[in-house]
């Protein structure tokens, strides 16, 4: 199996790994680098559970060919906050009940982070537009939107 080198920044750290041209970024993260926060939901680009940030943009990692991240920067939830120092989004999702089963949460948080990085004080409609690519079957989205708005407020 032909493999190619990938050198990229993962959550701020330089990572070197070899992978074939047949796998997507979700597989690279989960099966090669044991980063399990992005989740398999459909691998069809339609649910957002695999959302990570690539060069500042929220992307479906299942639609990105792994090799193409060479020389670029990927951020996942693992790079966001820690139990001792959680990111405002993580505090807000906890306090405003933005997660029930938690399976879509990593993707939701990365989409929200990408949104807040570009638009620190979004309106409710802008938050909805920012997470519209992330499907949640449990919450009905209401408390997720409120969590993101609360996180934006915290950062003020």
């Amino acid at each position, binding site marked *: 199996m032909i493999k190619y080198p990938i050198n990229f920044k993962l959550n701020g750290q330089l990572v070197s790994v070899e992978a*074939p*041209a*047949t796998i997507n970024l979700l597989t690279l993260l989960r099966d090669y680098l044991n980063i399990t926060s992005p989740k398999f939901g459909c*691998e069809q680009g*339609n649910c957002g559970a695999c959302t990570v940030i690539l060069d500042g943009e929220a992307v479906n990692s299942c639609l990105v060919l792994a090799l193409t991240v060479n020389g670029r920067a990927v951020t996942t939830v693992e790079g966001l906050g820690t139990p001792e120092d959680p990111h405002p989004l993580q505090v807000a999702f906890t306090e405003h009940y933005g997660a029930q089963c938690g399976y879509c949460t990593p993707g939701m948080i990365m989409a929200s982070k990408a949104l807040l990085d570009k638009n620190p004080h979004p309106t409710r409609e802008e938050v909805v537009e920012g997470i*519209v*690519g992330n499907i949640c079957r449990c919450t009905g989205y209401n408390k997720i939107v409120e969590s993101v708005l609360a996180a934006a407020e915290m950062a003020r």
Partner: protein
Amino acid sequence: MKNVKYFVPATLTEALQLLEEYGPDISVLAGGTDLVRDMNLEFKIPQNIMWIGHLQLEYIKEEADLLRIGGATRMQTAASSLAVKEKAAALAKAAGKMASPPVRSLATLAGNLCTASPAADPGCAMVGLRAEVVLSSTRGQRVVPLDQFFLAPNETVRRPEELLTEIQIKPTGEREGSAYIKIGRRQAMTLAVINTTSRVKLDGAGKVESVAIAIGAAAPTLLRIRPAEAMLTGQALTEEAILEAAEIASKEIRPIDDVHGTIWYRRKAAKVLVARTLREAAKLNGGG
């Protein structure tokens, strides 16, 4: 699992040479939202993949009477570009309605055109805007009007050795406007059940100087509705004329029944969208 070779050409010239050498056995990867999804679902595993994301093919250049958009321009770039909003409003709207924000930050205009989905949002807008595409190869370039570009779903006139490097659109100028409307099955992240683009230019007397109407999800390829365009040209854009054009369009299309919609519904909805896009375009939102 088959071995798949991966190429990162240093320059556009090198990329075109690879295309010359491998032809149909090499897949071009820019946004990748179709190619990688097909690989995930085991539909189509290419033998060779060529990455062109780094070849500076994402640009929007405004010239005197031509909007030149790089093939690798991503949906979100086109959707948020002031130049496109002003000079090709339908494309900005359509690019913003395609799939979801994360997909729009990956998917490219050229990739969307080469996938040749009959329901493609940006594709429908570009056909309605009478866009032309530049196909580059080692032997040079040729320019193909978009309504002659599509042959069938997933099939275009692009030869294996050619790369779609640029999309050219005549900006909407004086007394001219364009509009795109889509009916999906939900409010976002949905394929078009039916979508329509109109581009209208009026003369000094308010008569239709030129008009283009494109409809998606209504035939094997994106469709220009010539008979309706011919009927409108030279006429005043009255409500009666608009409804007549819509009626013609509804009969002209050849939709199918599928999971997204039925023939019955697509004919009904096409009539409504043609009328609505004509009215909106007639508001001459292009520098009119």
